[in-house]
């Protein structure tokens, strides 16, 4: 039950883009087509789960015992950057078809603040109070967050595809109208507040 609530919370209530403002760059950049948005979502989910698994393990077994949590930022970003590289190389070798589908999005993920942001956030306070800081919880949460990311980016891509077809006033075209759409979407998502 706790995990179901966690999923709802991460996908709808604290949607990473519309509520937490993380990962806005890919949200605005890679959301003009529904198919690309889906690809990006899948790639982010994959990397995020992996990254959170590794970073929370490092946090628990290396940084905290050695009392060097002040190196957190630098360690985490290096882990994420090299993970992205590794995933790219491995995918290329092991599953060329998946690589073709996700490959172009992978390098973009290093600078996607959602991955680093969530990796840091999950270390700050226990996700389920009674569990304390748990690697399993963190990884699970990051997958749920990534699903929320995918949901938001796909909905948004649908809206933008439709907007391509109509005449948006000159000054509003592109990023401004995208931000206003995101604002209205964020309003709609506020209906979910305190769902869990």
């Amino acid at each position, binding site marked *: 039950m706790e995990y179901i609530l966690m999923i709802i919370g991460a996908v709808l209530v604290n949607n990473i883009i*519309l*509520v*937490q*403002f*993380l*990962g*806005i*760059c890919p949200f*605005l950049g890679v959301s003009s087509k529904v198919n690309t948005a889906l690809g990006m979502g899948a790639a982010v989910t994959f990397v995020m789960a992996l990254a959170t698994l590794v970073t929370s393990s490092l946090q628990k077994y290396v940084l905290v015992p050695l009392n060097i949590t*002040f*190196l*957190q*930022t*630098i360690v985490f*970003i*290096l882990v994420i*950057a*090299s993970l992205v590289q590794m995933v790219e190389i491995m995918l290329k070798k092991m599953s060329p078809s998946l690589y073709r589908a996700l490959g172009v999005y992978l390098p973009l993920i*290093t*600078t*996607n*603040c959602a991955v*680093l*942001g969530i990796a*840091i*956030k999950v270390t*700050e306070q226990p996700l389920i109070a009674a569990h304390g800081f748990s690697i399993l919880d963190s990884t699970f949460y990051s997958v749920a967050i990534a699903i929320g990311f995918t949901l938001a980016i796909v909905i948004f891509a649908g809206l933008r595809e439709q907007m391509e077809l109509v005449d948006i006033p*000159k*000054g*509003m075209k592109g*990023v*401004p*109208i*995208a*931000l*206003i759409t*995101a*604002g*209205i979407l*964020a*309003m709609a998502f*506020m209906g979910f507040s305190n769902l869990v």
Partner: protein
Amino acid sequence: MSKVKILTKGFFKENPSLILVLGMCPTLAVTTSVNNAIGMGAATTFVLLMSNIIISLLKNVIPDKVRIPCYIVIIATFVSMVDLIIKGFLPALSESLGVFIPLIVVNCIVLGRAEAFANKNSVFDSILDGLGMGIGFTISLILVAAVREILGAGSFMGWQFIPSQYNILIFVLAPGAFLVLGFIMALMRHIINRVEDKRKDKMCAAK
């Protein structure tokens, strides 16, 4: 390019967040109050300046192949320093900016300036560039924050001058961030279009 231009191009014409659409996350997230915006702007400017200096100093030492990891390490170091300093001396600010201080690492502005400017130019030019971009970023943060704080909380830098029953709460919440930024960007583009139209008219007239 003249030195003055290197410094000032980030203020308006190449404003990193309002024109180049970089660093959107902090622009949306920490602009609930002008004080937060100034803090975030100053922190980012510091990181931008320091990383620009170090990277332009080391531009001949760092091999091309590993430059991105090197930049990331350098940037992350300065970010962690800022994080520690703010935590130690400005704990209230650290609490309200939260995770967005460490996230300066992935702010595209910083890595972008390293790639696009600092690794090709002299140290002095890189200092100007870093300062200019940082100030431009800070200006846009303050602009967004001022609109949000005045409309949403009826105050400016914590000084309340509109009674709370006239506050439009939504502007300090998530949707307000998107709306305000969207309209400010539209306004900027409108101004730029107008200026360019006028310049074209002048040139036509001169001919």
